[in-house]
């Protein structure tokens, strides 16, 4: 298999007067971030395959392009596991939902990673929800909200314990012993 590594892009170009940057190719593994590695593999049978990957996905896959030719087969397999985009011309309304407020479609979002309005999150439905689950490994917000928001986000006791334990480790590591003592007492009260 022949590998041709096309322009390992060293990030966006340095700012220049009047410079205009073009829309980046999205990473095939996460379908979120712009790709910086563009690899073309040509098999013995002449079939060409392309892989586009971002630095984060390469790092998570344990790939260091500077160390030698990346494992194309492994990267292609990871890309195949990612959410498949609808083939051109075959999208149905369900495959490629469109936001009724701002008009952005899921396919448009997948190509440049910017939504247009709050309604998009519900309008783009399960397609966007799937991206959220795969990227964050979670599907529900656990943090703070504006004081007057009516939405209730209960913090389960297990989450509270894990949060306090993480804070305690950090406080000890940074020698904030007073804060660490207070955290230890709060953990004792949780039982």
């Amino acid at each position, binding site marked *: 298999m022949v590998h041709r590594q096309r322009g390992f892009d060293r990030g*966006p170009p340095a700012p220049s007067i009047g410079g205009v940057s073009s829309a980046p190719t999205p990473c095939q593994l996460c379908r979120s971030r712009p790709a910086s590695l563009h690899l073309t593999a040509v098999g013995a049978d002449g079939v060409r395959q392309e892989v586009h990957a971002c630095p984060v996905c390469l790092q998570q896959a344990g790939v260091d392009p500077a160390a030698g030719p990346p494992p194309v087969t492994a990267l292609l397999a990871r890309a195949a596991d990612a959410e498949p985009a609808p083939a051109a011309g075959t999208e149905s309304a369900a495959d490629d939902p469109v936001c009724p407020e*701002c*008009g952005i479609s899921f396919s448009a979002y997948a190509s440049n990673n910017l939504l247009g*309005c709050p309604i998009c999150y519900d309008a783009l439905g399960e397609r*966007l929800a799937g991206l*959220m689950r795969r990227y964050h490994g979670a599907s529900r917000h656990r*943090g*703070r909200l504006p004081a007057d928001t009516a939405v209730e986000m209960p913090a389960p006791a297990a989450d509270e314990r894990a949060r306090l334990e993480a804070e305690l480790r950090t406080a000890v590591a940074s020698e904030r012993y007073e804060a660490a003592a207070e955290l230890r007492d709060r953990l004792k009260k949780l039982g």
Partner: protein
Amino acid sequence: MSVVADLAGRPCPWLASPASHAGIVISSRVRLARNLADQHWPRKAARSKQVETTRLLLEVGGEAIGAIEDLRLRLDQLTEAERLVLFERQYISRELVGGKRPCGLALDPAGACALMANEEDHLRLQVLRPGLALHECLAHAIEIDRRMEARVAWAVHAQYGYLTACHTNAGTGLRASAMLHLPALAETGELKSALRALAKLNLAVRGWHGEGSEPAGHLYQVSNLRTLGRDETAITAGVAEAAAQLAAAELMAREALLSDRRIQVEDRVWRAWALLTHARSLAGDELVEPLGWLRLGLALGVLGPGSGGGAMTERLAWSTLDGIWLQCQPGHLQSLHGTVDTAERDRLRADLVRARLTAG
């Protein structure tokens, strides 16, 4: 003199080495991303709406952080050199340097809080501190967010929390990051395994100017990738713990270098000193690596007070290295010395470095 030109001549509040961990952890930053509830977001908003939201957020955000009028800036009305200065001080992102659309920046008087209006999201609220101080940054950022919430309504979802233009920021909208100097881990070959371990913890490691850059001068920025599913304190604690562990590993690697390869380390430091005190022309990328070696030399006692290296090196101070690092960047040079071509700028840079390192 413009407000930004005046800023360019001053030290940067979040760059105060050695700060913490023997100068290894250079700075901490917490960023919150927010969007207004009843508006199209920057990508889809009409230009007139972008002007209006920029004005609104500069007013509300500026008040929340105590920014004077002169430090509530319409970035698209500044020169590119001025925007570069703000980028080099980490107050604005690379995206806003081009200045192609209405956007703004509000800075607090201490230079520790920076609010960007109309970037990828309506608001990017940032708090910066020297050294490892992520929890303090988070507490301050949340306080500012609460003040703004009293006047504007953010876009919030029952399931996904704070909504952002890219799904990778939704939930808390929080990006906690620490900038570290890791030359010893790089020299001992342990850096790659350390970075792979971070990737397994869903932490990103990038070069010192954040997303899309490569490491220069062994300067790395560690940050969380995920913003949904854990609360702000847990996310911040994860980054803080990783930064503390990396700093501890770097300290051990420095001890190992001094023990096993002292002559080679001193040689690299002194070669860097010789280059920077004698070069007549220095491109920006020629400065970063030798400057990194001087940082390491100062931390290890090869340079600086009591090093026995001679009068000039004994006077070397952390503030000198910080000042060189900041004010030898292209935007700062252009702002402080007028518009110059690349060759002239490289000569100016070399002159500045020599003058500061050899000052009496």
